């Protein structure tokens, strides 16, 4: 680490899917310090002190080259390696795809179970969406469906719901925020928006509430309605807000619908937006996308044709959103090697598994007992430069090298493994 201090401006933060890029971060002898605009999660991410970490093979410290060779050896001998985690940046994901292809593996992201609640709806009925800047300037009605937005994106209310200024005169005071789900409205009530309405059902009943709302908007009569305390009058009041809105946005994070067939809630949201768009303007805005989830899905899609859950076992991409869920495969004892990449937070550790594991992780990550090879890697936007795709899957941001450490990038390590694999697999 260099002793000279340096101030970085317009720093993009890789620690949640919003990727705010108005941070100032200073590097000095003690490490990194967020000087401007960081939320708690950003401060925790940038200012985390990295524990010392060395590449290891079966718990023994080794030089990086030896760990890379050991990883290539394991992958070369594996019949079905599972490339999971995939919390990385665009370059890391490109390298993971190339390696998965060459080794006939399966590709899936650690958080794709939630993303798949969205993809299933997209792939069956389509949808209409907005993006962060569009919502910030335009939305006069924001309906938050079952989601604790502030827990996922601490600055969402400051930057998107109640910005200082709007291009079209839709100031915070003129905005209405409706929250479907109890216990989720604290941040909204602190934001200086014109009106906050809470429909206090259980958060995962939001889809049911929206279903009733759609029925009322279409003029159906419903009797004896009580969805976790939400009454018909509440639904009708919301219907009126929807009718009055010029540009309504329904916000959700698919992780909120963590129940069997949670995609049905997303389907109701897409359906509500579709119904309302026939006469006025409405759009959805899915949130989440931390740990490089949006990046992993996007790169996988443009390179393979499919949003993750792809197997290259036959040499060609084969897509099966059920079969190639790595979480499911691990539980069912499928595959013979886990290759886990996690470069942002130490909490995103590999699931418990009996499979031998190769872990490319940020220092401090908890390793499973079966770890054969551990390679500490840098965090994109902290230890090395990179690029990351935002949760709306439209905007991508350049990430700076803030010089926290000299740890290699996931891309470099994965490409190194692929190169070693290539030598290994040459005929003698």
């Amino acid at each position, binding site marked *: 680490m260099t002793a000279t201090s340096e101030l970085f401006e317009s720093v993009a933060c890789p620690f949640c899917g919003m990727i705010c890029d*108005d941070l100032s971060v200073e590097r000095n002898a003690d490490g990194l310090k967020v000087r401007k605009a960081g939320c708690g999660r950003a401060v925790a991410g940038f200012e985390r002190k990295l524990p010392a970490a060395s590449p290891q093979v079966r718990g023994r410290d080794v030089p990086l080259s030896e760990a890379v060779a050991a990883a290539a050896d394991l992958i070369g001998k594996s019949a079905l390696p599972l490339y999971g985690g995939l919390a990385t940046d665009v370059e890391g994901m490109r390298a993971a795809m190339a390696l998965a292809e060459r080794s006939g593996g399966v590709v899936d992201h650690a958080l794709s179970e939630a993303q798949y609640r969205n993809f299933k709806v997209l792939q069956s*009925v389509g949808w209409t969406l907005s*993006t962060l800047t569009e919502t910030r300037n335009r939305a006069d009605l924001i309906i938050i469906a079952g989601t604790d937005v502030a827990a996922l994106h601490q600055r969402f209310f400051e930057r*998107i719901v109640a910005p200082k*200024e709007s291009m079209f005169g839709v100031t915070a005071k003129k905005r209405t925020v409706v929250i479907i789900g109890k216990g989720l409205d604290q941040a909204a009530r602190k934001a200086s928006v014109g009106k906050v309405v809470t429909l206090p059902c259980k958060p995962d009943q939001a889809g049911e509430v929206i279903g009733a709302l759609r029925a009322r908007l279409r003029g159906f009569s419903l009797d004896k309605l009580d969805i976790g305390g939400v009454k018909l009058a509440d639904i009708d009041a919301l219907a009126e807000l929807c009718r009055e809105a010029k540009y309504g946005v329904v916000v959700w994070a698919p992780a909120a619908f963590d129940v069997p067939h949670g995609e049905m809630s997303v389907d109701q949201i897409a359906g509500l937006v579709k119904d309302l768009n026939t006469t006025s303007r409405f759009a959805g805005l899915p949130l989440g996308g931390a740990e490089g989830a949006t990046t992993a899905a996007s790169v996988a*899609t443009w*390179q393979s044709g499919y949003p993750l859950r792809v197997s290259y076992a*036959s040499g060609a991409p084969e897509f099966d959103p059920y079969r190639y869920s790595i979480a499911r495969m691990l539980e069912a004892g499928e595959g013979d090697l886990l290759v886990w990449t996690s470069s942002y937070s130490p909490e995103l550790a590999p699931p418990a598994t009996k499979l031998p594991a190769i872990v490319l992780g940020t220092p401090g990550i908890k390793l499973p007992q079966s770890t054969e090879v551990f390679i500490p890697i840098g965090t994109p936007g902290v230890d090395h430069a990179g*690029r990351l795709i935002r949760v709306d899957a439209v905007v991508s*941001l350049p990430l700076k090298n803030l010089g926290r450490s000299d740890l290699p990038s996931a891309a470099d390590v994965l490409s190194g493994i692929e190169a070693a694999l290539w030598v290994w697999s040459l005929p003698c």
Partner: protein
Amino acid sequence: MLIKLTGGKVYDPANKVSGELRDIYVEDGKILAGVPDARPDQTYDIRGKVVMAGAIDPHTHIGGGKMTIARMLLPEDHQGDPVARTELTRAGCGHAVPSTHLTGYRYAEMGYTACFEPAMLPANARQAHMEMGDTPMVDKGAFAMLGSDDFFLRQLSEKKDFEAIKDYVAWTMHAAQAIAVKVVNPGGISAFKFNQRKLDLDEEHAYYGVTPRQIILNLARALKELGVTHPLHIHGCNLGVPGNMETTLDTIRAADGLPIHLTHIQFHSYGTEGDRKFSSGAPQIVELLNKTPNISIDVGQVLFGQTCTASGDSMRQYAIGKSAHPKKPVTMDIECDAGCGVVPMRYRDKSFVNALQWTIGLETFLLFEDPWRLFLTTDHPNGAPFYTYPHLIRLLMDKSFRDEMFQKLNADAQSQSILPSLKREYTLDEIAILTRAGPARSLGLKDRGHLGAGAAGDITVYKDNKDREAMFATPELVFKNGELIVKNGKVVKVVQGATHVARPDYDRSIERPLKDYFERFHTVSLENFKLADDEIVTGDKGSIVVQPTAARMA
């Protein structure tokens, strides 16, 4: 390394060479003037073969968010077309919206050496270039979309100094690493966000009060005065609407001598005659275009089968969503910058409307007199996937084949069309103009699209087959910068291809109001919005070719 291609029949219309037997020499990636005493390191005997410059697609949706939405949307499109990796090439899949690597391989295997993405949203430019970076074999470039972005609409409605508008257009081309500028449903993408469902040429935007005519004229004039070679690339108002031919005729007249390019004009050439109030406007439009030398077009030919439409035109894509097949349309409002719509579509020869769309495109090709102002496109994947080009070329070159296909159409569409009366058959010279020389000249690619001294060694060699579809589907040899990359229609060497950009001069002080605008309204900072060269040139991958622009006019 000096290579020689011996004895081919050369079609190089940019240099007025038409089927003459010529030897071609390439050294260090460039074509040399004749070198009679040279001792080539490698000689290819191509006697009897047809030689053209590598083909150039000036309008093909190959990279950017809407394509990845389309890919994500349509697993059923890919599942029938999986491609395994080889020691040389990456795996992939896809029919209408293939994966990035496959797009590059398949274009090269069809004799193409350059492809231009026409609808790059500045807010999405980084991803568009990342996807193009994963599209090997061909050169790439992209057109920045302007005209529904709020910064420009504010400039226009506040009647800002025209020089500031020019500076902003040029700044955007630099920031997004673009070679040209496109306008899509001028102002309409923004108007749709204000719940306007149509915006005709002289209709006012509900919020800004400006009209599509003003937007087109300002952008077209800005590009001309900035010295950008490719004129404003216009996807006009009212795409797909019966009767939109009147808007198109008005747009042609509105240009009033300014250079413009009207893209996928087939989708804008619809009349309202007949029992079904849907008819061809191609004869009237082409009649006017034949007399209007400042305007070039590409066709956006429809060919039958399953595809996926993907466009920045959120307003019109939302409207055609009800015709989606399968039924899963996607619409997006994007970043106070633009929008997009992705609608899967199946064109059927037994459908009256689809059959008529097919005939309207072909009528346009056959009636249009000047091949230098007409480019061969299907607006991939909107009218059809790009690998239908050889079929389209056969339709243009072979009247009896065209008649045979015509017989399969919906009977009512047949009875309405003048197509059987059009006897024209395109020549190889004309095909070479439509698919290489014309696009290269229009885009300002000085060293592409021809085979003269100094040109890049991008060369395609075909077997002279009477079945022009077979001929153009499987070239025998394709060279990229003098390297053999395709043999008998299969990739033999993988290359990366360059990214072409244009960088007109501008006054840097435009960044002051831009910085203020970004800080007040956007969620990305001005600095991070801009795409650096080293994001395209990464490690040993990628290169940038800055094509020349003319001097700026005050």
